[in-house]
């Protein structure tokens, strides 16, 4: 899940908080509600900084330590904001045997960031992901919703240039 340090100050809005409180009120009494609430909270804020976790902890009357324990357990939850463009490289087996490891290294080099990090200008974040199920296109990477397949290391510059 990348480095744990928060590089960007929290800037949640009143609207976001109202949306979160509504989600909590709607689901509070469901069985096993914490996970779905955290997932929706991440949809609202884009990530789960400690400030958001505190709200959930207070409203649900669950210790913050438990909330934090869950957030750090699952790789989908992020303590850091994501970039405007989320670059994910599939490191599933089918992609790996076709060279996605090299593609991931090349991206780290090009963007100057590691797995799970975000560039200083907030533009790109990079992560490795497990199989996205497009094994016919291996090796594959995604930038937000766009899928790029059958890649070679030489394609990377061109793909990034589209978003710069």
């Amino acid at each position, binding site marked *: 899940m990348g480095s744990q340090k928060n590089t960007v100050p929290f800037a949640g809005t009143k609207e976001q908080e109202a949306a979160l409180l509504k989600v909590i009120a709607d689901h509070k009494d469901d*069985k*096993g*509600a*914490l*996970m*779905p609430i*955290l*997932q929706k909270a991440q949809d609202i804020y884009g990530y789960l900084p400690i400030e958001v976790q505190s709200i959930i902890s207070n409203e649900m009357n669950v210790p913050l330590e438990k909330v934090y*324990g*869950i957030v750090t*357990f*699952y*790789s*989908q*939850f992020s303590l850091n904001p994501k970039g405007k463009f989320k670059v994910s490289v599939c*490191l*599933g*087996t*089918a*992609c*790996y*045997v*076709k060279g996605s*490891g090299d593609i991931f290294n090349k991206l780290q080099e090009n963007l100057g960031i590691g797995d799970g990090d975000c560039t200083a200008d907030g533009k790109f974040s990079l992560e490795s*992901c*497990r*199989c*996205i*199920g*497009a*094994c*016919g*296109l*291996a090796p*594959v990477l995604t930038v937000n919703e766009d*899928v790029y*397949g059958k890649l070679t290391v030489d394609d990377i510059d061109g793909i990034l240039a589209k978003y710069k």
Partner: protein
Amino acid sequence: MYRSHVLVCGGTGCTSSGSPKIIEALQTEIKKNGLSEEVAVVQTGCHGLCALGPIMIIYPEATFYTLVTTEDIPEIVTEHLLKGRIVTRLLYKETAEDEGLNSLNETDFYKKQHRIALRNCGVINPENIDEYIATSGYEALGKVLTENTPDQVIQSILDSGLRGRGGGGFPTGLKWKLAKGNDADQKYVCCNADEGDPGAFMDRSVLEGDPHVVLEAMAIAGYAIGASQGYIYVRAEYPIAVDRLKIAINQAREYGLLGKNIFNTGFDFDIDLRLGAGAFVCGEETALMTSIEGNRGEPRPRPPFPAQKGLFMKPTILNNVETYANIPQIILNGPEWFASMGTEKSKGTKVFALGGKIRNTGLVEVPMGTTLREVIDVIGGGIPNGKKFKAAQTGGPSGGCIPTEHFDIPIDYDNLIGIGSMMGSGGLIVMDEDNCMVDIAKFFLEFTVDESCGKCTPCRIGTKRLQEMLEKITTGNGTLEDLDKMEELCYYIKENALCGLGQTAPNPVLSTLRYFRDEYIAHVVDKKCPSGVCKALLSYVIDAEACKGCTLCSRICPSGAISGKVKEAHIIDQSKCLKCGACMEKCRFGAISKK
């Protein structure tokens, strides 16, 4: 009535290669040509031949078009749909004959397949419950509710010989029987759709292509064990599957096929979705239940087994998507029909996700007992680029690598375990001579270390030590003694880890040590990586005869390791070389090679 149906694959593979845009373009063109009343466009689930996506089939002719692009659409509409002339250049090669079309079922890819779990994938529109019902959907549920007792249902599943398709191979009927035997005020039916094996996408395809089959089977299971609530735990990374499941659940509720008093029999059953959040260990049954309860997805020791105390401490059954996909067919066609397929101890069919170094990447369903050779060479079309086959990997991070000498054994649960691998959920990754088996073992151990939940010591620390030893070997610092130590540690972890993840984590190491020990020895004794993958063990050399002295390599070398005069052979200083490979990539004369 439409005179023609155009089926476009909307599975993940084809969606990634642009099928939504193709559907859009088709609809526009069809409208433009005034065919909207005559031609229907249907988005279906996966056809299996993902390597040639996006895929389109036009009925009634059953024309199978592959690698379709939006530019092809006007031609398809004006030639095929308007004038009835097949666009031969887009035909799947094997179906194209001089005199017309060859049946798809006659092609190498399809002829050895037998689709039960994938029966409706690529055939119906998964977002329309009526199409599922038209292919005898929900008939099995109606049959059990009106004609069978729960015990009869369980007996049918027992007699069919169906075993869990998630990898373990536990008899499904027995699981149901145990859960039925435990009395409780509330029981649960869960579906494991947290398909975490990298390179496996069978369950995803069923959910995307035929979501109702899972709902129907879960309701049947609910009736059999006496549960009124089901949960599907599905990966959040599968957005299309999640959407289609939501649509399917709503439609089933609308039709009264989920909810209260189903088929007027007094039976209540409903299903909720729970999204996973990216933790491989949640594919383990007790961890999955802990996660649905809203906790860190850590496994619990067994006993008590889920059939006694599972979700929310109530009796629970958990089956995987593909297992459920077989249930309605077993009810409708009878257990004898199902048991007539397969081997002595493994009945029915198995879906495999073929990937890696193989021509026909995709999804295939074959009867148990088919040999690996048939799957890889015939259905899979063999290895591309004239490379030599090295190994087939099954079972994901819990499985092993199988070498050529075992290619003719019939695939079933027990045979695969016998050769040091396992069925797993059905990922089948093919590797060729360019893949280093030590590197592959390291790749899987990195995965396990990352995904180990940390609850038990053998897995948390043991897998980390294994990974470190593999790192040592791939960087040229390993010794022969390390190999023995590694093997000893592997057996220790297998015997002592708490859950399936830890118990099977050493398999990639053990199987590669067993079949590819010579590669390990090359790494530790000769300090060479025979496949040229492990960077620390490579050296780049310039062939003095082929080098023209153009100086390009010396100019691009980032560490200034290459020297030489113009028009004279260049030399790489190995002590400075970073092994980045930039020189080899750029050399126009092929004079640089890695050894």
